[in-house]
């Protein structure tokens, strides 16, 4: 099966239910969208992420009730440097959705979604530990993988693979 080209035009995608719901709530909250390899990605603006998650979880037609994963990607040296990636799953409807927030390298912080899904706790701690992205409103934002007194954030692209010698 040859790859179909990715659709990144917001106009073509706006009929998709999750995107339509977010655009109907606040058209300014959506920065971009992409449909590629059968996966829908919505890039949400930083202040809107917690409310967007709550909206997608509680909407009776969408029911994205399960947070599968949170992770980060570092696009150093380009800006905006960080992406925080959320993978949502709708258990009743068997559908997946990817949300993204783009963050600038000089201020990598955003709102925690632990109040929407308590399962975000460990995932956000992991992103904080390995990328140095801070989540405001997190109940216990501490390192989870690395030792407490570790310097640096290992999954950043400017951190050497062998570590600092």
């Amino acid at each position, binding site marked *: 099966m040859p790859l179909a080209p990715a659709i990144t035009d917001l106009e073509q995608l706006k009929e998709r239910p999750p995107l339509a719901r977010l655009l109907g709530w606040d058209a300014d909250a959506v920065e971009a969208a992409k449909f590629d*390899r059968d996966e829908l990605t919505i890039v949400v603006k930083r202040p809107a992420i917690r409310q967007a998650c709550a909206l997608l979880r509680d909407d009776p037609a969408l029911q994205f*009730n399960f947070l599968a*994963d949170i992770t980060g990607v570092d696009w150093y040296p380009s800006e905006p440097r960080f992406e925080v990636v959320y993978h949502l799953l709708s258990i009743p409807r068997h559908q997946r959705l990817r949300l993204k927030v783009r963050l600038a390298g000089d201020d990598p912080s955003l709102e925690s979604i632990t109040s929407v899904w308590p*399962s975000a706790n*460990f995932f956000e701690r992991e992103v904080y530990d390995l990328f140095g992205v801070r989540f405001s409103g997190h109940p216990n934002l501490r390192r989870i993988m690395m030792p*407490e007194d570790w310097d640096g954030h290992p999954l950043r692209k400017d951190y050497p*693979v062998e570590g600092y010698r």
Partner: protein
Amino acid sequence: MPQMFTPTPTLDATGPRTMTLNMGPQHPSTHGVLRLLLEIDGETIVRMMPDIGFLHTGIEKTCEAKFYQQAVPLTDRIDYLCPLTNNLCYVLAVERLLGLEIPPRAQWLRVMLNELTRIASHLVWLGSHAIDIGAMSVFLYCFREREDVMRIFEMVSGQRMMTSYFRIGGLALEPPLGMFDAVRKFVKRFPSRVDEYENLLTTNPIWMERTKKVAYLSPEDAVALGATGPTLRASGIDIDLRRDMPYTGYEKFKFKVPISHDGDVFARYMVRVQEMRQSNEIVRQTLEGVPEGPIKADAPKIVLPDREKMKTQMEALIYHFKIVTEGFPVPAGEVYQAVESPRGEMGYYVVSDGSPKPYRVHVRAPSFANLQALPTMCEGRLIADVVAAIGSIDIVLGEVDR
């Protein structure tokens, strides 16, 4: 919602009645190097805090420095009880990035070996869970059958545990002569062996006393806390990715998804035992009609050529040299591929920037998320129940810490 407290609490507990107890990282029932901080009042747990990271080896960072095909052996080491499931999830993600079509024979063999892996993993779980609670002999019975599965893995890949048998584009090798006979023999014998384990445990009054109504997890909590797999299904949520979002040809096979509504340790035990029977049933179905044909996709720039061709054909030699020394570029994009591992939803999020090395590989480890449900299960219960609760969520610390 569970509360998380400081990872290094002091012993001057706040109340006059409570004290802090350190369980692990060397405690035998923590299945590796899990450290639990317990604040206890007598024998009752007031608060619990899992402390993880002792096995963190930076596998995700290492993957970024390897070619796509070189990352396959690394995935074995993430969850060392189900290496083939990790292989499968990673290669499926990369194959989706590439848009590769996998021949049916390879898909059938993948399903067969993946289900054998599930059986082997559940056998380790059952044996160690029973030994934690005090039933010594079950462990010996379980490892007898696990050895049979390990021999089958050794036949196909030359390795008992770190198999790396699934490769991008298909399988590493054609399975050897006699492998199907060995699987057939195992499948025929296995249901009676599960009966043996059940005879020892299911209606055993001591076992029931230690597991029924222990470590209860409500369906709402299970979803909110990110539990997946048997832990979620034992709380009454009916989802199995093999049936509901099929991959690698699972839609061709018929099987039941066992669920339970009790949400306790016994329910998780029953769900897993029935899953072993269902997995055996799937393996039996795969044996009945393995399609003939190639085991590798027709993509000479991605899949290594056969040894024989390499020695006789110029092009094959060139492709081999190119793949080994330069890797192969993968079109830019990102994919999240989830499979049903023995422990729950295992997901690989692979990001490509168009180069021969993955830009980012992230593993959504089911044990990592299931561990978050542990404090909710244990708070307000007795210390002795913690051992049963840890066993019932079936964590593998290699996967938690990665």
